[in-house]
């Protein structure tokens, strides 16, 4: 047994005064859990491959941290991507990546679990392994190195990262992770640990529900680069079923509180998981089915415990569509009555575009009326029907009128560009809609109102009805951006863009096969990291890496796939049938909508897959 290395406080004191935001690396946050490391049987480090202030806002990791630390014989600690100045200082001083809780070198943990939420963080994963002194490729790691696990939505199309991970946990970690850790513990106890034991463990793990061991599959390719066959070796299953829990387990209440300002520095509870709207562009709406609501009483009680344990002044009620929570008014009323004396601000993200949502916003924003956001996503009714965003112009104008009448002066509207079947007329329709909102605002308030318009470029995602489609031609997108910019040169309108530069890379990485591991490695070796940050992103580095590996980002990002093509994520079964997605894709092309499945099952496949007697399984407050 090697002696674990602990990074000393003195060593850190020599470098922290010279880096930005040193508190990112100092730990000791309220509710962080420090256990007796030596006495623990299983030691897991949870990593988010982006800056501390992004990673600390991720609820998924917080749930797993809470869960694992509840086990008396296990510990979970945390690490995030050191900012570039800290990375340089650590490398210069020879300080390896360490955990925030006990400052143990990460290579001394049994397992490292990475949260994969966004493709542009992938080079950071490699950088974190390297900073930890761990070989980045799974095949190069020894028995002394930790097992490297990936999870999160990125694990639903894991192939581009296949070479770096020993295994992926697909789906909701609340069940799958603990099963895996117990299996690991048993294997280690049974036979100690060696390369041979690790190999046997991986074979055994591959048979656990929701576990994908990429090294146990062989991929062959057609001459044109498409996947020919994806074949399991030995006893590994052909398809890996995403793990799903119902009802939702209790939410964590002792949230770790960052000292520094983070993206979301507030108490959070998931009101519900899943979404029934069936928007065809939305990956979350497909892969987190079915809808599972928490009961109102449970939410209120959890919030009580959370506020007592944190002292937070703001509460976020998370869900993919808050207005759809079946007892949302009752919940807000109860929370407001309970917390009025304590000045608890409540935020309700992802409101549906209608007047009802304005009333909800009014319940929680009494007096403040800071801002209100709606996401019509597309300008014309035809295009909204294509993407199955079941919102009409009338809904939006009603919502806007209600909001302006009730005192808001400022609205934010989200749209997407580059959607399937989009034409110039659809772009003109965005401008038209914004003009109508301005007019409604003037009527309601008697003077000019402000409208912020944000436009993102649509990227087709795996496991959605648009998974077969190419990314829009970026030159066309640029022309249409210009067109919209001209049309929206209006007083009171602000137009925001998301940088389109990284879009092709994002599109390629999210639908790539495992040959992209080589591209990611090369880009990282050429200096790519923090690609999600505009100031660090350099497309040339990536273009060079693709070229050197003889691969084409357009092949992955901008190609129409046929119905019989083997998609690199076909072996990951998220519960929604491929046939359903294909049918939805064709409904989209005909601009036919599919209703919200709360009104009746649309046979997406989930019910059969998880043998649910009822779908949706349970709604808030139902007995």
């Amino acid at each position: 047994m090697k002696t674990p290395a602990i990074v000393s406080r003195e060593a850190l004191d020599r470098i922290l005064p010279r880096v930005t935001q040193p508190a990112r690396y100092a730990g000791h946050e309220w509710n962080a859990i420090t256990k007796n490391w030596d006495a623990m049987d299983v030691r897991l480090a949870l990593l988010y491959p982006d800056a501390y202030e992004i990673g600390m806002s991720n609820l998924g990791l917080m749930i797993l941290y809470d869960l694992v630390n509840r086990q008396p014989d296990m510990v979970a600690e945390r690490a995030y991507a050191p900012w570039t100045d800290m990375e340089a200082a650590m490398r210069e001083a020879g300080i390896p990546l360490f955990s925030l809780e006990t400052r143990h070198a990460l290579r001394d943990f049994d397992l490292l679990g990475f949260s994969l939420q966004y493709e542009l963080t992938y080079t950071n994963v490699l950088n974190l392994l390297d900073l930890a002194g761990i070989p980045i490729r799974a095949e190069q790691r020894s028995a002394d190195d930790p097992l490297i696990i990936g999870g999160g939505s990125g694990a639903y199309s894991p192939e581009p990262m296949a070479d770096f991970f020993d295994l992926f946990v697909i789906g909701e970690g609340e069940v799958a992770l603990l099963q895996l850790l117990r299996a690991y513990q048993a294997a280690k106890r049974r036979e100690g640990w060696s390369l041979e034991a690790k190999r046997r463990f991986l074979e055994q793990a591959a048979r656990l529900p929701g576990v994908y061991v990429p090294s146990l599959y062989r991929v062959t390719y057609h001459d044109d680069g498409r996947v020919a066959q994806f074949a399991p070796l030995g006893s590994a299953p052909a398809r890996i079923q995403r793990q799903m829990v119902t009802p939702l387990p209790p939410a964590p209440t002792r949230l770790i509180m960052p000292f520094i300002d983070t993206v979301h520095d507030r108490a959070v509870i998931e009101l519900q998981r899943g979404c029934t709207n069936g928007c065809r562009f939305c990956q979350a709406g497909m892969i987190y089915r079915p809808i599972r609501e928490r009961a109102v009483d449970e939410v209120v009680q959890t919030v009580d415990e959370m506020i007592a344990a944190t002292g937070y002044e703001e509460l976020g009620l998370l869900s993919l569509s808050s207005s759809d929570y079946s007892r949302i008014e009752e919940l807000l009323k109860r929370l407001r009555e309970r917390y009025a004396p304590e000045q608890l601000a409540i935020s309700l993200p992802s409101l549906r575009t209608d007047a009802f949502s304005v009333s909800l916003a009014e319940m929680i924003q009494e007096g403040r009326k800071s801002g209100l956001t709606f996401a019509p996503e597309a300008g014309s009714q035809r295009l909204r029907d294509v993407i199955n965003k079941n919102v009409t112009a009338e809904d939006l104008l009603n919502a806007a009128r209600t909001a302006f009448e009730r005192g808001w002066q400022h609205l934010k509207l989200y749209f997407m560009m580059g959607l399937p079947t989009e034409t110039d007329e659809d772009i003109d329709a965005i401008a038209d809609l914004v003009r109508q909102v301005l007019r409604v605002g003037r009527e309601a308030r008697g003077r000019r109102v402000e409208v912020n318009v944000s436009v993102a470029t649509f990227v087709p995602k795996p496991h959605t009805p648009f998974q077969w489609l190419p990314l829009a031609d970026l030159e066309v997108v640029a022309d249409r951006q210009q067109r919209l910019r001209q049309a929206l040169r209006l007083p009171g309108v602000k137009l925001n863009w998301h940088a389109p530069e990284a879009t092709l890379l994002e599109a390629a990485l999210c639908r790539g096969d495992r040959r992209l591991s080589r591209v990611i490695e090369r880009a990282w070796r050429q200096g790519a990291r923090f690609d999600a940050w505009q100031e660090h992103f350099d497309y040339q580095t990536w273009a060079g890496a693709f070229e050197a590996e003889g691969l084409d980002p357009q092949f992955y990002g901008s190609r129409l796939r046929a119905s019989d093509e083997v998609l690199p994520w076909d072996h990951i079964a998220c519960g929604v049938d491929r046939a359903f997605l294909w049918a939805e894709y064709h409904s989209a092309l005909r601009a036919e909508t599919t209703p919200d499945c709360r009104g009746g099952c649309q046979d997406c496949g989930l019910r059969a897959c998880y043998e649910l007697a009822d779908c949706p399984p349970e709604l808030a407050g139902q007995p």
Partner: protein
Amino acid sequence: MSENIQRLRATYTKGEAVKYISHLDLARTVERVFRRARLPLVYSQGFSPRPKFAFASALPVGATGRAELLDVWLSPPLAPLEFAKRVAPQLPAGIELVEVREVDLRLPALQASVSHADYLVTLEDAPVDLGARIADLLARDAIPMERQRKGELRAYDLRPLILELDLIPGPGAQIGMKLANSSSATGRADQVLAALGLADAPYAVERTRLYFDLADQ
């Protein structure tokens, strides 16, 4: 109404575990500590009400403090001991209560009352001529320095901000400093070290005491 309001003055430490958090972060942390402790805080009026509390003086990031000060307003009043009982279990590692007492509501703001501060600087390695360097520095009429302020480099004279500077006898290399610490003029320990030619030497800074210019503390 106002007679039901109380002003408590707390002396606390900002120790190793929290020395890298900024003043703004500390303020947010303290507010949440008070909320967890369920104190009867007095809130400001307006759309986003803030609880009323105020610090004496910001501590530079990286420095520890042995006797930092803050005032907090409560209504209805709470016995200082009860305040301590509620607050102590909610404090993150590194922050400890040293003393709590009630002060007159009419006292001027803490920030306006503080005039200077003592610092204890511990050097990892001291140059052999440290005593001479200190004597030289004190003998100068002016010490022109520059510092970043709101993104601009500003020139200023450090000399009048140094009230005392002593090499502390003993085995370790420690320097005691008494520096101006008012809202209009504040001397920083790291700048004094820079003036001593020790900008890059590893060191630890602790603020050990804050002084008031008022007779009535």
